[in-house]
């Protein structure tokens, strides 16, 4: 029997308005305990899908079940209860700039638990140690590098030991060392917490080696999925182009335009 699914998306369609559909009939299932990647070009709908899994958006049609709950049917209080079992790392960390590193990590603990200060202190130091930044506890977010800020945000995201951890473009604007550190942390934290992780990214080289399963999205649809080794070899033109970074292919280099010669006035426009 396969492990229970943490995320089950069934035939979900979604658009921010009536004219612009972002997700078309997306179906995917994420069993517990693995690290998943959702990959695709900018604007392909992967961040929208992640926001839907986080309960910020409701599907126009289809069902989205996360940790056993149907997202669309939740009241605000129920959604907040569900979110206490989730952690999310935002693209640039989204640390609270008026709080120190320590207070940022302590924030969810102070908001959601009545633990004594001494216990909160131990937990915060434990989480900061896990991301290697215990020594930076008293710094302000403005004093951190991009990579450090991402790691502090990661410590904050796992403060309540979530069952599901989501990463929205965790590698954007990171140097190679920080990038490797964040990638290893995602894997290690997922395994040590027994959680399930979803990484939304377009960074092929860094992501494929450490994830268990990858979903490729194009134009709001899942075009290929499977373990990284299999998907890379799959005969899907978009995936081949995306993984190899080819300039032209399933996604054309040129934005649709009328004839070049006609635009230059060398022949009559049709």
């Amino acid at each position, binding site marked *: 029997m396969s492990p229970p699914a943490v995320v089950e998306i069934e035939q979900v369609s979604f658009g921010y308005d009536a004219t612009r559909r972002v997700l078309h009939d997306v179906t995917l299932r994420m069993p517990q305990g693995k690290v998943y990647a959702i990959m695709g070009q900018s604007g392909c709908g992967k961040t929208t899908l992640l926001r839907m899994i*986080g309960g*910020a958006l409701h599907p126009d049609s289809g069902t989205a079940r996360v940790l056993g709950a149907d997202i669309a049917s939740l009241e605000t209080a129920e*959604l*907040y*209860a569900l*979110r*206490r079992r*989730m952690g*999310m790392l*935002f*693209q*640039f960390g*989204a*640390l*609270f*700039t008026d709080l120190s590193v320590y207070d940022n990590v302590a*924030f*969810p603990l102070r*908001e*959601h638990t009545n633990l004594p200060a001494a216990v909160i202190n131990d937990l915060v130091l434990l989480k900061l140690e896990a991301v290697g930044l215990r020594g930076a506890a008293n710094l302000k977010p403005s004093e951190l590098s991009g990579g450090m800020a991402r790691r502090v*945000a990661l410590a*904050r995201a796992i403060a309540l030991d979530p069952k599901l951890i989501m990463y929205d473009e965790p590698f954007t604007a990171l140097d190679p060392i920080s990038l490797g550190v964040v990638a290893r942390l995602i894997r290690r934290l997922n395994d040590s917490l027994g959680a399930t992780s979803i990484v939304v990214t377009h960074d092929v080289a860094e992501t494929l080696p450490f994830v268990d399963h990858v979903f490729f999205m194009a134009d709001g649809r899942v075009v290929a999925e499977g373990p990284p080794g299999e998907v890379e070899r799959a005969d899907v033109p978009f995936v081949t182009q995306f993984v190899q970074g080819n300039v032209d292919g399933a996604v054309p280099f040129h934005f649709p335009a009328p004839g070049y010669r006609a635009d230059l006035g060398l022949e009559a426009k049709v």
Partner: protein
Amino acid sequence: MAGLREPVQRLGHSMTERILRLGFASRFFAYMLLHSGTAFRRFHLTIREIYFAGVLSLIIILVSGMFVGMVLALQGYETLQRYGSSEALGILVALSLVRELGPVVAGLLFASRAGSAITAEIGLMKATEQIAAMEMMAVDPIARVVAPRFWAGVISMPLLAALFSAMGIFGGYLVGVQLIGVDEGAFWSQMQASVDVRNDILNGVIKSVVFGVAVTWIAVFEGYDAQPTAEGVSSATTRTVVTSSLAILALDFVLTALMFTGGTK
């Protein structure tokens, strides 16, 4: 006729937009009031905002109050001495400040000093996804971020207006009594005899509370509703100052009309 259609359509569209936004602002206000529990249960959150909105506005409020009072004394003396009633300078300074200038000028200064800061802070929190992060951590940003700032503004504003008036009266005393030489006894005793606690001071306090609600409501709403870009935050900050200044002046007229007409005093 065809030429008229487009401007009329545009006007209609812009009016509908404004009315919708006002409706959204009202729902936001009601939601904020309903979720103000945190701001009082964890009062240290509100105290912290009182420091930023109130305490840090003290310098501008006190210095401006002093100068306004000094100018009032100079101008008032000039007119009063023509009619031989320069002893009434104390009444003129005190009533002008307590009834009008205290709440109104302090409100305008508060809007530009604290209102703009509140909008910019909340707008930038939104632009840097701090608000979204809070929601993902199952913490309601309206209860945690917006409500404490709102109540801090409502609490700070009457205190700042009172301090503005007090400094203004002191400035009036310095210029009227110390510089020009109006009789000190007459200055204070006429002021004490003529300023009424209910009709003058209480009405001034009511005005400043109303201005505090208006300015802070506009400031938190504009910040929360700002486009999450540098340009969006900058135009939201501008809108806060412009809208709340106009709101103060318009509300002042309405409140004055309600309070001081009908020969109550």
